[in-house]
């Protein structure tokens, strides 16, 4: 196992508030890691830092992927996405007024090159690219049993399916690392069980690294190979699910001082 993403002394201040303080962590390739912590611990902020939505105050993030080593700080979100870091959002951010198929096609934009002129003049290569993109999208949608709804507008999908589509969309950028921000939020136990299976499958099938924020501990304990615990912006603990379950500091953070 090699270190795919290396985070060193990452700090983010908002005015006087330190949302993420001195976080050092790493993700190995083909690993499924969970990031847990109480509400307001800075988990989503950390995600936003890693995916370039916000820039860190200091510290470094380095991707050591197949194509070489890239520092990610000060890169824009779309550049980071192109380098192979993809994500879902806590409060679903699909392209609502567009079809399921379009949602997936958009995520493939940067992987296909079709020039302006050939698109405008409809050269044969335009039709070829469009066909290839669609075939790939439908293949992917099929894996997630969404291929019957390609023409449905994203906003008209049921909540659970929307979450699934967001994962498909993230996968269609062909990421090396997939960040899932509370994928089970708002789901019933059945849907959560489905999702649990899905996440394990995705990670195996696509040979990617997954970092998962989740509050549903049963899900985390089932899927995670390693867990980071974040509290008040700093790392509290790291270890296997078993170690974390027995870590007194973690129990204290979750249950309060007197537990």
């Amino acid at each position, binding site marked *: 196992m090699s270190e795919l993403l290396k985070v060193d002394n990452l700090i983010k201040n908002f005015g006087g508030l330190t949302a993420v303080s001195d976080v050092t962590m790493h993700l190995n390739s083909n690993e499924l890691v969970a990031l847990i912590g109480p509400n307001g611990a800075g988990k989503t902020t950390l995600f936003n830092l890693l995916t370039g939505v916000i820039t860190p105050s200091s510290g470094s993030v380095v991707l050591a992927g197949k194509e070489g080593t890239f520092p990610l700080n000060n890169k824009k979100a779309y550049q980071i996405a192109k380098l192979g870091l993809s994500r879902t*959002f806590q409060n679903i951010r699909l392209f609502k007024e567009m079809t399921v198929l379009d949602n997936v096609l958009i995520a493939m934009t940067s992987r296909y090159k079709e020039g302006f002129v050939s698109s405008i003049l409809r050269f044969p290569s335009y039709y070829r690219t469009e066909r290839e993109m669609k075939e790939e999208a439908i293949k992917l949608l099929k894996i997630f049993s969404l291929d019957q709804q390609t023409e449905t507008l994203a906003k008209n999908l049921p909540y659970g399916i929307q979450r699934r589509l967001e994962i498909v969309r993230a996968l269609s950028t062909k990421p090396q690392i997939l960040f899932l921000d509370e994928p089970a939020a708002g789901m019933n136990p059945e849907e959560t069980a489905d999702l649990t299976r899905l996440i394990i499958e995705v990670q195996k099938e696509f040979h990617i690294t997954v970092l998962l924020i989740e509050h549903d501990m049963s899900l985390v304990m089932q899927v995670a190979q390693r867990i980071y615990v974040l509290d008040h912006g700093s790392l509290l603990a790291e270890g296997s699910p078993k170690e974390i379950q027995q870590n007194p500091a973690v129990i204290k953070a979750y249950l309060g001082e007197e537990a």
Partner: protein
Amino acid sequence: MKANLKTNAIWLGLMIAGYYLMNTLILVGVINSFIENMLVTIGINIILAVGLNLIIGFAGQFSLGHAGFMAIGAYASAIITNSINSPIGFYISMGVGVVLAIVIALVVGIPTLRLRGDYLAIATMGAAEIIRIIINNLKITNGAAGMFNIPQFADWATVYIMMCLTTIVIVNFIHSRGGRAVMSVREDEIAAEAMGINVFKWKLAAFVLGASTAAISGSLHASFLQTIAPNDFNIMSSISILIIVVLGGVGSITGTFVAATVLGVIDTILQNFGTLRMVIYAVALILIMIFKPSGILGTWELSFSRILKRIKVKRGVSE
């Protein structure tokens, strides 16, 4: 591939048929010069509104300065054809207008497209006003008096062909990888960035493309009417283009065609009413916004590939 060819052929056929229909009607005398003027105005407005619809409806960027880019094309043609008095000169001037509009759209767009919603609207409106005020004070543009006796190289056929061409460019762009990227920007910028889309680049692309077609319409306007003045390109004219887009449906090119035609006809009918016409427009705009903010057609588009598919399905069922 075959279906694609078929739909393309239908569209092409429709455009050619439109051309010959107009040609015949003019020859027979059904279309007199009065109606011809109306049709040319409609055509120019379609070019303008289709470009603005790309920016507002598809890229989701609320620009209120479209008339500024039209002014650039108009003055480029007026100035250049005054010295190169030939059709070649006219097409050169159109090209110069487009290039100028692209440059200015970049200058305006690079800083302002970072703004959102109503702030962008105000900033682009300001930019268009700056363009107008500069034209108003330059010698080469003959200041506030405007320019007269511009050689006429654009007739209804030129306008018709340019209308078809610019629409093809914009519609084909919308249906390509770039068009989808542009629409994702409208839907959710943060999600689009996270999917590897350079939001700013695509916003700018839509803005520049829209601006360049506006310059073409400006060239046609100047050459057909032969008279232009800075005041033809003020805030009011930006707003009238906006009204076409909104009335037809923000995000529907078909709607833009319908709205431009309907408004063009109404405009001609109400010509004798003077100011009252504008009052009626204003009331119509308010009522549409309150009762049907999605416009006449919403985001519906006329699509032959969809119709063909449906026919195929029906045939399949009956067989």
